[in-house]
């Protein structure tokens, strides 16, 4: 039983091979860490999964359905949600209005479960401790609030699979703990699958049940955090020869 399956995924940019023959399976409710040095293809991989990039070879299967022909917004409606490495808020809107966009466009009446979209937005802001920023424009947010908004908006899509792309870059150690706590709580409360791309090793190792390491567009390790950290190939990829 898998929620996400990536089969023989290959993506080239001109002559440069960003991903070559990637195979990956993610189980429902799993917390998966995705690591790898800069330029190893992590963001390209999630761009292919979320549909931002569609001219790849191979296939992306979600809940048994082949997504290859679906554009990004249709994949989002199927339940794949992502946050962006560089936050991309809707800057002319308030925090709450940001959350209303996915709630209005991607969430079904069934998922709303009798509540209004406003109530859902309020609940998510409470979970992520953004409640008092509800009516602020995004321009005035601090770094950590911006990261939280990015996650909150991704959560407002009511996803089955949440992909968090470096949600902790540039945060202080206590702020990292904050985000970690929120993500683990989300995973335990809603059984949502989370894929975390992260450079902060401490965070990704304590969060993940399983870790996949990419290097130069290939999977070089795929097992428990402890084993991956001891894997000589991973060490080599990070430190070089």
């Amino acid at each position: 039983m898998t929620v996400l399956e990536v089969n023989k995924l290959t993506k080239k940019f001109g002559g440069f091979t960003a991903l070559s023959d990637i195979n990956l399976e993610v189980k429902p409710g799993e917390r998966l860490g995705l690591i790898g040095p800069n330029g190893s293809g992590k963001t390209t991989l999630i761009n292919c999964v979320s549909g931002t990039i569609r001219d790849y070879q191979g296939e992306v299967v979600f809940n048994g359905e082949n997504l290859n022909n679906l554009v990004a917004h249709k994949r989002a409606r199927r339940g794949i949600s992502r946050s962006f490495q560089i936050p991309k808020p809707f800057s002319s809107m308030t925090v709450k209005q940001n959350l209303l966009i996915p709630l209005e466009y991607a969430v079904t009446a069934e998922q709303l479960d009798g509540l209004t979209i406003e109530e859902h937005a309020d609940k998510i802001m409470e979970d992520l401790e953004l409640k008092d920023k509800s009516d602020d424009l995004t321009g005035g947010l601090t770094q950590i609030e911006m990261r939280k908004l990015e996650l909150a908006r991704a959560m407002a899509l009511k996803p089955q699979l949440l992909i968090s792309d470096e949600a902790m870059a540039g945060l202080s150690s206590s702020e990292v703990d904050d985000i970690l706590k929120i993500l683990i709580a989300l995973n335990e409360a809603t059984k949502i699958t989370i894929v975390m791309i992260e450079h902060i090793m401490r965070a990704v190792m304590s969060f993940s049940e399983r870790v996949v390491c990419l290097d130069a567009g290939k999977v070089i390790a795929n097992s428990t955090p402890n084993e991956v950290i001891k894997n000589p190939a991973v060490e080599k990829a990070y430190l070089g020869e």
Partner: protein
Amino acid sequence: MTSNNKFYSIIVGLAVLAYLATALVDNQYYFFAGFAILQLMIMALAWNILGGYVGYVNFGSAAFFGLGAYAAIFVMEYFKADLFTQIITAGCFSAIVGLATGALTLRLRGVYFAIATLALLVVSETLILNWDYVGGAAGAYILPKRNPTVLGLLIVGKENALFGNYKELLFFVLCIFGLVTIVICRLIERSKFGRGLEALRDNEQAAESMGVPTLRLKLIATTISASIMGFTGGVFPYYMTFIDPISAFNLDISVNALAMPLIGGTATWLGPVLGAVVLGTLQQIATVTISSEINLLIVGLFLVGFVIFAPDGFLGLIKKFRNRGD
């Protein structure tokens, strides 16, 4: 009274006022100037649906306007169609052209759409210049029907008619159309559609990954915008009683359609309306007192000045002023 009721009462009130004006005002210059300003306003509102709400620049407003005008001429020549049919055809034809242009280029970066619209302007002008059936380079004359009636009611005539002459009728038609356009823009702003456009303007990639069907929304916005421009163009030949490609596809139309919203403010429908009324009036005065070149210079200078120094237009300036007052 809710703000909605208030808004619609004002709209209806203005419509009544426009009709009374055609009955009571004698000086034909006011209808001429009013028609010009209304035309500016509607084109500005239509431009803003794509430019302001979505952030895609259309340089080819004059193409949609001119194609509307010539679609009207064509059905008049070929089917002997009446004014109403002509205007409807004009809107529909421009809508189709808008949709096609959008479908070809809206997948690309916004600048390519902008350049393509400019290309569309020259291509359509060349086509019409070479098409003698609708007058070619020499242009075409329009002879309005004498004593037209609708449901037994005399529309235009010296006595016992709804309007004293065609200019007054067309002024009124454009007035109603302007008010309808304002209502459409306001409805868009307050709808799910409008919120989706806003999200995609702020960040297209984020909007798409939050479930917003960005390409479809862009296409709908382009089609609505182009059809409104087409309608406006459809009224134009009747009003002028003569039309040629140079005036129907004039770049000034494009410049004005883009300058008014950028000067007035692009966030809501009020911006283009303010921009068109203030600048349009100024243009009318400048044309009468100095020269028509000077009025174009004024638009150009205002446009450049505002985009550099007041990026949020009149609306932004008013807001700033108010905040300072607090």
